[in-house]
């Protein structure tokens, strides 16, 4: 199909942050040089970070959506399809509809999916806030909560936005404080790690806050099973914690449509060079964002920074046959420390978070709270 085309065809899989930023950068900088197709199964881009606020207010989710066509450069063709198979040997992507598309260059940015079945008892019992439906359901459960054990945490690693469950734990504390219910509520945090968080300096900060607020941290708690009849969650390490309300980030998996183990591991995380973001096995394939196996947070900021590097490298390869842009692992996460204060973690593969960001304040809160406006107009354009 593609052999008759003069211009190289770049196909981008995924209409989230990473995919849209790559599409916009290429659409703007290489419209005469390449044909670009963005494939997405969703008609809208959804701004996920604001879901944590929806747990504690009464707003709907309308402002978190934008039609894909409105945020994607006009030089990019959009295909509404769901990918079911990728054949990297023959450069073909197959869709659920039965259609297929060929590519010369491919960018994989299809994010992560939730694997509710891998933890026995999860479905129907555990709450989370990682999609629209679950968030609204949890909001109702919080509103009607009358007291008891709230158990929050993470079922398994890796997962998106590693800071989110800690933020929600702090926000829960302040939410119940506001409702004058702290004496009736015990909050527990389950961490698969030997501390609250994977970065030591940040972990110490969070653990101090947990202690101050009376939040019980359960270290090395790798979820084994949820037993609804006992209202208990058990760990691989042999611990059992009782809950009245369970809020557990579900296990995540990567791309289901890749069965080539040279391209992605068994969990579907795409293996790329951590700086060039190029597949080691297939040099015409790049991956960005949550779907990668990179040793860095799965977050909007990392997808954004990676998208800029990947698009530069693809363009340079097409123009000059070489690439030189490198991703340094930059991540930036604003962390809610209560309902109206936040701190920021800014780090790279080799640099720990900047100390200045550790001071919770109102300014960081406002930046995070109102970031969605900048996200749709600025971040997705790739201009910043």
């Amino acid at each position: 199909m593609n052999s008759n085309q003069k211009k190289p065809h770049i196909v981008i899989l995924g209409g989230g942050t990473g995919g849209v930023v790559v599409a916009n950068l290429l659409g703007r900088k290489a419209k005469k040089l390449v044909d670009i197709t963005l494939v997405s199964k969703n008609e809208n881009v959804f701004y996920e970070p604001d879901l944590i606020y929806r747990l504690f207010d009464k707003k709907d989710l309308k402002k978190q959506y934008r039609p894909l066509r409105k945020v994607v450069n006009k030089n990019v063709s959009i295909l509404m399809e769901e990918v079911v198979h990728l054949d990297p040997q023959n450069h073909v992507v197959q869709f659920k509809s039965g259609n297929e598309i060929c590519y010369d260059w491919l960018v994989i940015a299809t994010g992560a999916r939730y694997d509710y079945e891998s933890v026995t008892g999860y479905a129907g019992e555990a709450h989370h806030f990682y999609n629209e439906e679950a968030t609204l359901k949890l909001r109702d459960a919080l509103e009607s909560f009358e007291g008891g054990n709230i158990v929050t945490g993470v079922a398994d690693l890796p997962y998106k936005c590693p800071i989110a469950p800690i933020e929600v734990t702090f926000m829960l504390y302040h939410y119940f404080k506001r409702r004058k219910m702290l004496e009736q509520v015990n909050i527990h945090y389950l961490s698969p790690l030997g501390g609250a968080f994977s970065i030591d300096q940040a972990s110490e900060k969070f653990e101090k806050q947990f202690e101050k607020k009376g939040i019980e941290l359960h270290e090395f708690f790798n979820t084994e099973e949820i037993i609804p009849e006992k209202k208990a969650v058990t760990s691989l390490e042999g611990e059992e914690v009782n809950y009245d309300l369970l809020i557990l980030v579900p296990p995540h998996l990567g791309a289901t449509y890749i069965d080539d183990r040279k391209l992605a591991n068994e969990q579907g995380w795409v293996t790329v060079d951590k700086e060039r973001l190029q597949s080691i096995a297939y040099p015409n394939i790049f991956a960005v964002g949550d779907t990668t196996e990179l040793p860095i947070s799965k977050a909007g900021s990392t997808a954004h920074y990676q998208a800029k590097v990947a698009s530069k490298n693809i363009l340079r390869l097409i123009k000059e046959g070489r690439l030189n842009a490198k991703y340094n692992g930059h991540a930036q996460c604003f962390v809610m420390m209560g309902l109206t204060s936040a701190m920021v973690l800014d780090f790279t593969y080799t640099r720990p978070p900047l100390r200045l960001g550790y001071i919770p304040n109102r300014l960081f809160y406002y930046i995070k709270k109102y970031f969605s406006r900048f996200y749709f107009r600025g971040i997705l354009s790739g201009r910043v």
Partner: protein
Amino acid sequence: MSQEIIADQVIDARGSYCPGPLMELIKTIRKGEVGKIYEVWSKDAGSIRDIPKWVTKANHEMVGVFEENGHTRFVVKKVR
């Protein structure tokens, strides 16, 4: 402790960063059989603290920790 212990499975996590090596061990032990010996290779400094601490918490046996050229070998026996 002898370095001649023969592991039933070697987990080469030298390309992983914290907490990768520990999580790969946990994933393997979760599926593994009681009595089997697992060996994790790690280059990450955090593993020296995390892996023995996790093995103790999970009530498995830390058979040994051995420094090699550029990486550390953690030998763990699944006991329950």
